[in-house]
């Protein structure tokens, strides 16, 4: 039962990842990406990390995918969507690199031998139990899995407090930096050297932009 469920989720996950990568229309790619994020959340549930699945849905589908959609909408290519992939030769080269790496990874995963005195982890098929009655050695882990929100909160404020604060600083700096990058000062300009040429240049640029908007909306 579990295995069939895993098979279904994994197949759909790989297919939606392929759709993200190969879809010519960027909006379709974004929607495939949402499906992929959701299927990854399903995999987290299969791994009994439900809290992480919730975080995945909230952060990735709720925030990251929406930001990416904004980016797509704001930078619609004026020439159309046909230019979003590289040439045939580049496609074959990329595909070859990907298939080669996949071969290496799968060979490494299936032929692992394990460190001395320990069993190889590729033969592992059972997990530590999460029912406290049957779990003696991993009791704290079982308790943490069964009440993960509490465990994550406690860990964030004790064991990982430095990383937590660093992540807070990183997020603040990243968001301020993103706003500072994207903020627009004065009239739209093509190039920093153009800014001295001021007015009629800006007017012609605005006309150009209006024209390109018109053609893109017609196309």
């Amino acid at each position, binding site marked *: 039962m579990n295995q069939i469920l895993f098979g279904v989720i994994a197949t759909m996950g790989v297919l939606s990842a392929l759709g993200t990568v190969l879809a010519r229309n960027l909006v379709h790619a974004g929607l495939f990406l949402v499906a992929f994020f959701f299927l990854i959340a399903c995999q987290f549930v299969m*791994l009994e990390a439900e809290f992480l699945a919730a975080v995945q849905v909230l952060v990735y589908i709720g925030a990251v995918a929406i930001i990416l959609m904004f980016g797509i909408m704001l930078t619609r290519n004026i020439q159309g969507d046909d230019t979003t992939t590289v040439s045939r030769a580049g496609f074959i080269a990329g595909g070859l690199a990907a298939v080669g790496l996949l071969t290496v990874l799968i060979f490494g995963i299936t032929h692992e031998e394990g460190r001395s005195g320990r069993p190889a982890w590729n033969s592992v098929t059972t997990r530590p139990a999460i029912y406290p009655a049957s779990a003696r050695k991993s009791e704290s882990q079982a308790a943490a899995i069964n009440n993960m929100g509490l465990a994550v909160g406690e860990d964030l404020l004790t064991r990982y407090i430095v990383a937590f604060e660093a992540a807070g600083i990183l997020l603040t700096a990243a968001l301020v930096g993103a706003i500072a*990058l994207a903020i627009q000062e004065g009239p739209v300009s093509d190039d920093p050297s153009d800014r001295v040429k001021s007015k009629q240049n800006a007017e012609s640029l605005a006309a150009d932009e209006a024209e390109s908007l018109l053609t893109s909306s017609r196309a």
Partner: protein
Amino acid sequence: MNDIPLTWFLIFAAACFVIGLMGVLVRRNAIAVLMAIEIMLNAANINLVAFWRYGTPVEGDSPISGVMFAIFVITVAAAEVAVGIGLILLCYRRWHAADVDRFDSLSG
């Protein structure tokens, strides 16, 4: 109970990672490249959580170390997307294109 072998999760993660890598190499649009990077990060997260769940917990270590690692990866990925979109919008305004091979001012 028929539990799922650890190898299955690893192979699924490897497949997703490889697809993401192909996306980074093949796509030309900067936002598509960003999406492919997100796929790769998610594949890495699957690996972290799978090893955490199947491994035996170490005495004195955090009982949910893999989950915490994945949460920090998600945090950094969110910050990365915000900055990435900001950069792409900036480049779009300057070159009127979001294609990575048009941003070639530094190539001699």
